[in-house]
């Protein structure tokens, strides 16, 4: 097995280990309303670094990182308002549930990892 394939295989332990690692349950919902539960990285932090000045500013940035091979469909941003967007739902460490809209996706197809930047979403 080459190093690249090995790196992809290691994603199972890096991203999807919810017992001994930082893997966290995430529910993905596609625009058709079909949901699937996956394990991956989830981030939801309030401190940002201003890229222009390097100083810390208050903000909130949320993201998820998933193994592409575990997904039947790659999430994308849906700009068309007549369609439902891709949604990602997960709870914070205190169990408070949050629903986010997929705002940006950054797939790394070289090693099989996709990072999604999220936006707050009111699912009514």
């Amino acid at each position, binding site marked *: 097995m080459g190093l690249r394939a090995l790196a992809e295989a290691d994603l199972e332990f890096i991203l999807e280990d919810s017992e001994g690692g930082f893997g966290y349950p995430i529910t993905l919902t596609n625009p058709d309303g079909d949901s699937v539960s996956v394990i991956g990285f989830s981030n939801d932090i309030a401190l940002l670094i201003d890229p222009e000045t390097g100083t810390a500013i208050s903000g909130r940035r949320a993201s998820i990182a998933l193994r592409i091979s575990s997904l039947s469909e790659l999430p994308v941003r849906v700009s068309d308002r007549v369609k439902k967007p891709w949604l990602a739902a997960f709870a914070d460490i205190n169990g408070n549930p949050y629903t986010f809209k997929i705002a940006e996706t950054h797939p790394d197809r070289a090693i099989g990892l996709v990072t999604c930047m999220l936006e*707050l979403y009111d699912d009514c």
Partner: protein
Amino acid sequence: MTIASLINKQDGFEIVRDQIAAIIALESASQQALAHTAGENKALWKMRVFTERSGPFEEWLNPEDLRGVDKSPIVNIWYDNGSFPMNKGNTVERQLHEATFNVDCYGVGFSADDPSGGHVAGDQEAAIEAQRAVKLIRNILMASEYTYLGLRGTVWRRWPQSITVFQPQIDGRPVQRVVGARISLRVDFNEFSPQAVPETLELLSVNVKRSETGEVLAVANFDYTT
């Protein structure tokens, strides 16, 4: 010799800044009343007004409940800079202050499910909200009723120099959609400074008369010591 009086007055730029904020707040309330009378959704005319704040939209950044958030546009007025042309004042008492005030308007939008189909785009909502606030504020401040911002005699004129919208950065975009727009408002007004109270040295009175011959005579009365 020092200035005899305590300087405890507001300077012109402080008065004008606060007046701009008061006008926007007053007219926002007035417009809401007019909208209610006209059967319109008065919330579309509501704005929250602040002065000299660095992050007035902070409460939008970490809402616990999206539906409990007051999404009315936030307006922040702050004094940016001013200059004093030497040919429009005097060195003793009064100078013309050509000042720029930034009227920053912030709009927030949260993406949401649309029960009738599709979804509401938070980025578009935020931009629409910010631009709606800009529209209201420009119309309010440039209305004829506020030609001198209610400070005739102090304010010479006001003029909107520019409108700039803050485009969100692609990198580092947070989960909330907040768009800002700035109206740079130029206001020219007088600034006054403390004046020394003069001490009376002598009293001198002069009566100017014309005699029957047409000669102009001046009769002066004053005390003198020899």
